[in-house]
């Protein structure tokens, strides 16, 4: 069996020095991907469905206190801990380096959710409803997930798919910046940059070479495709 290969390895760079924590990406993701609306009770129970969250950490004490923001989405690990534990291949890896989630296959063991060190997988504990006419907003490109299945950030795979089809229709590769997930597209400060890590000239590939780069929980050896750039200073000059 031949391994499939791909000219793409999608990745993202999150520049924490640019990130202001405003939350635009969170709503963009929710709007793009038919992410369920969760009420107060649901979030109180720890069942928020957001695929992308901004973590806020307090460091130090008043008056020398700092707040640090960390947008966390699926890291699309090259060695994703969620993949091998799924008994039904609902969590799988595609040749573009995306960590996919096939809702139809999912039986809801939630093993992947446990084994994801980044805790970015959300489970449909509830059977979510969109009161009419809010359901008009639901995007036809993306499944509305039924109860009992796991879901997570896909790097807006529907957009990638569209861009790849457009490109292959024109007999070329997807150009840098041609496709962006909703979060990166909307980020006012351009803290999120998406692109093809396999192309050394792409913007992400250039940013990844920054000395400020790091990856979340790097010691676990998951090799995420999401790179972070450390906040530059944030201390007194």
């Amino acid at each position: 069996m031949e391994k499939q290969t791909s000219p793409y390895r999608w990745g993202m760079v999150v520049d924490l020095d640019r990130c202001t924590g405003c939350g635009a990406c969170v709503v963009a993701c929710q709007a793009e991907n038919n992410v369920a609306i969760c009420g107060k009770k649901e979030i109180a129970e720890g069942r928020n469905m957001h695929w992308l969250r901004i973590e806020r950490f307090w460091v130090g004490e008043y008056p020398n206190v700092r707040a640090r923001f960390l947008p966390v989405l699926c890291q699309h690990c090259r060695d994703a801990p969620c993949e091998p534990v799924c008994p039904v291949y609902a969590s799988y890896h595609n040749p573009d380096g995306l960590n996919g989630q096939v809702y139809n296959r999912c039986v809801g063991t939630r093993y992947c959710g446990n084994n994801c060190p980044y805790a970015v997988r959300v489970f449909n504990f509830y059977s979510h409803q969109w009161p009419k006419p809010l359901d008009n907003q639901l995007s036809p490109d993306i499944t509305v997930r039924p109860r009992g299945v796991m879901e997570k950030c896909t790097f807006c795979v529907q957009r990638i798919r569209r861009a790849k089809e457009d490109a292959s229709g024109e007999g070329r590769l997807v150009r840098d910046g041609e496709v962006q997930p909703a979060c990166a597209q909307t980020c006012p400060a351009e803290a999120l940059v998406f692109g093809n890590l396999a192309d050394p000239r792409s913007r992400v590939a250039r940013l990844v070479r920054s000395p400020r780069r790091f990856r979340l929980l790097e010691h676990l050896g998951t090799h995420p495709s999401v790179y972070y750039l450390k906040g530059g200073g944030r201390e007194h000059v």
Partner: protein
Amino acid sequence: MSEPTLSAAKSAVRMNDAMLSSLRPPTLRWYLLAFFLGGVVAWGLYAFGYMVSTDMSCTGLDRPVMWGVYIVNFVFWIGLSHSGTMVSAILRLSRANWRRPILRAAEAMTVFTVTIGGLFPLIHLGRNWVFFYLIPYPNQRGLWPNFRSALLWDATAIFTYIIGSSLFLYLGMLPDLAVARDRCAGWRRTLYGALAMGWRGTAREWLIFQKASTLMAALIIPVAVSVHSIVAWDFAVTVVPGWHSTIFPPYFVIGAILSGVAAVITLMAIIRKAFHLEEFLTPLHFDNMGKLLLVIALLWSYAYFVEVQTTWYAHEPIEWEVFSFMAGRYTPALVLMLVGNSLLPLTLLCFRRIRRSVGAMLVISLLVNVAMFIERYLIIVPSLSHKNMPFVWGTYSPSWVELSVTAGAFAGFALMYTFFAKCFPMVALTDVRELEARKVLVPFARAELPSIAGKEGGDD
């Protein structure tokens, strides 16, 4: 037919009567018990049905604690199953004669606990109705299950274990079924006759039977070890702090045997009382089981110490966070676990008087199992609560649905066991009678000492 007149036969009749007393028609109390247990099972089924028909929000699960009491139950029940077959097999191989009255209770327990335990991974699925996606069979989806997943290892191992331990139980019961067949009438005779397969007890049959028993015992032990190792791998192969630990498989196996041995003692005490088997389940048996429990508790304590000591010494931040969270939030449970699994057995079981006291042994063995349930809980829940990302730490407490299903599982086990006890010989009577038949008094100096004639098992 004329009754045998001589004493050997007489004692055989008496023993048969005593040991098959459980097969007598059920009393009102039995019906009440069965009715009560059936009620609890029905409630558990209702709770499960409620969960399936609404959604999983009725559980206490959340992110990050995506596994809760269902998986605690799974590990606990699979752990319990270890005593039975494994203890019985070890004792058979080591030719401990005192094992004989215990065998059946232990082996039957294995079959039922592993059945209950095996249900829990299915109960806990988000979409139970597509559970068959987990089963490897050629399907239209063109997709086979992912054997990389420890859950598939579980599935195969538990399947093997259910089949193996059922066969082991049946094998041990074969001669007893023949006896029961000969003493019963009506539907029972038909049933036992069919199950006994025409067993007559010829010398040849006995010989092959003994060899098969020994072989089965030898085969089932590695299966039992592998089953609980795989259950441990469900946790150990993850990257969850507190789970990712190399000692988990042996530690889980030891814990499983500990809870299993304790459960056998509990059942011995109950069966002894319920079926008036004081003559066969003597304080000697409790004494020996007590010694076994003591040894296993010692091993468990050692394994736990090693596990915690490594964490403490390494002081890896997130691992240590998980441990301190567990010790902080669940202090009473942690203390109860250490007392029940380690402190009490290690001190009390050193005393012969306590080991020989059925009441004390019942209390200790129950406590061990309470502690083992807590141990499973403390392994699963705190680790998930404080996983790698501090921002999404969470808590978990089981909901009424999960508790009801748990209660239903306990009642279901008790119910199956009660039915089994009513239908099948609860004491391995041919094994016990064999010992009786081969017991001779050997003159030794001024005394006559009891001795067992012949080699155990008739096989080398």
